[in-house]
């Protein structure tokens, strides 16, 4: 079942001549992890903001969980969607970790006893319970992003939007965050929409949507997309490691399989190939 449905969406910033979002239509199925990729300025973040009504589209229709996005329904839709932004510092509203996790619940008028148990539970899930009373100034970027996630776990949304949420983290912090999200997705049947330049994040996704200059380009599985090889760089993504290895082998005139291999697949193929003999 499609939980997010976008039909012929258009949006233009008032200070720009070109369309930021140009006639985009797409459907996202319940429980899927969908990555939206595209180079800088291709309209990915604009799309995410339109989806939860932070900006109003010029034309087109957005339906989330069978509810059309209108000025009246916008708060009901935001109840179902959690969003994590790029800069960990600028989305930390609370004075301490626990306060920040509670912020979303305070907005929904959750009573205090429920808040206390849910704050503890959410912080435990992201492994930050020991930091409960810390202030944001004493936390690393990765820890702040975990707190942002905990704030979303506490309100238990149906959809999670990650707007380049891992782009300012080091590789280890990024890996940790992605693992937490994968776990959440499995536990809660969450639909995840991640906007990213990170190849590993995109590789984890069930489907990838490519956007370029506000146009919808294609929607495919990671392995179909990664077959594009060097074209990926133009899409705003890095080339995955197995593809790089294949390229390097090809340059040395060694025949490689056409189809995309993940790391496991590459290792298996290398083991059985004649290179080993």
């Amino acid at each position, binding site marked *: 079942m499609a939980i997010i449905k976008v039909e012929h969406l258009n949006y233009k910033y008032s200070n720009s001549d070109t369309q930021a979002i140009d006639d985009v239509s797409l459907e996202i199925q319940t429980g899927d992890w969908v990555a939206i990729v595209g180079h800088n300025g291709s309209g990915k973040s604009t799309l995410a*903001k339109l989806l*939860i009504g*932070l900006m109003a589209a010029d034309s087109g229709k957005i339906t989330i969980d069978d509810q059309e996005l209108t000025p009246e329904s916008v*708060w009901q839709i*935001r*109840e179902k*969607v*959690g*969003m994590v*932004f790029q*800069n960990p*510092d*600028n*989305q*930390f*509203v*609370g*004075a*301490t970790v*626990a*306060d920040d996790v*509670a*912020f*979303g*619940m*305070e*907005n*929904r*008028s*959750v*009573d*205090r006893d429920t*808040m*206390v148990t849910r*704050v503890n539970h959410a912080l435990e899930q992201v492994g930050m319970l020991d930091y409960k009373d810390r*202030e*944001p*100034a004493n936390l690393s970027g990765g820890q702040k992003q975990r707190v942002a996630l905990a*704030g979303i776990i506490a*309100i238990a949304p149906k959809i999670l939007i990650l707007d380049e949420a891992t782009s300012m983290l080091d590789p280890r912090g990024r890996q940790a965050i992605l693992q937490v999200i994968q776990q959440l997705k499995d536990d809660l049947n969450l639909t995840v929409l991640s906007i990213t330049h990170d190849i590993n994040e995109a590789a984890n996704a069930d489907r990838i949507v490519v956007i370029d200059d506000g146009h919808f380009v294609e929607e495919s599985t990671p392995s179909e997309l990664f077959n594009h090889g060097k074209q990926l760089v133009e899409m705003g993504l890095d080339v995955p490691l197995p593809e790089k290895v294949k390229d390097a082998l090809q340059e040395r005139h060694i025949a490689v399989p056409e189809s995309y291999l993940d790391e496991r697949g590459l290792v298996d193929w290398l083991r059985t190939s004649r290179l080993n003999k």
Partner: protein
Amino acid sequence: MNKVMFGRFIPGHSWVHRMDPRAKLVLCFLYIAVIFFANDFWTYLVMTVLLLASVVASAIPLRVYIHGLMPLFWLMIFTVLIQVFFGAGGHVYWQWGWLSVTQNGLNSAGVILMRFVLIILISTILTFTTEPLEIADGIESLLSPLRKVHFPVATLALMLSLALRFVPTLMDEAEKIMNAQRSRGVDFGEGGLRQRIRTIVPILIPLFVNAFNRAIEISTAMEARGYQDGENRTKYRQLKWRRLDSWSLVIYMVGLSSVVALRYFI
């Protein structure tokens, strides 16, 4: 900047630390109001005893408080000297042109010095033992009756807590900008007044621009998390008034009302 003790918070578990911020704020205000009733040896003795008792209850050594007074040392000297030399009336001890040292002058200098030191120390007890956040919570709670006259208390409280939360972040950023400008050859703290003012501009403008961007991002994030307006929200942080607070209030009331009584009835 780390040398300034005034207005700092010193973590601890003393009686005063464990008190409700509302109680501390109210006591601090009452104390400051009553200081202006005190006018002779006995009233000041009561005020000083009350203050010293609070210092002891805060479990922070007196020298830390004295250290906190240091930045204001010159200001105190200055006001006292003005009172001493320009006071008029009473017995004249010494005169030179329009400068004179008189009995009344010395008296009022003493009174002003006492008030100065007591006011600063009592507010230092408040800031040493209360986290900024608790102060913000306390202010919100004390202002809440103003809701009746449609004063946006919750909005004010949110602004206060956001401002407090961003103080360290903005300090870090100012430091970063200063270092970045230094690495590009801007010399801070050199040259005359005009030159110094000019070197502030390359810090101030980026700081302001970044603050605007931050404000936009944080408001977007707040909206995305369901923030509509200040009212109709529940609160995670709760203040708890305990027996300790009531007792402190009683002790202060006895001390402060005896000052007022000494002034008017004895």
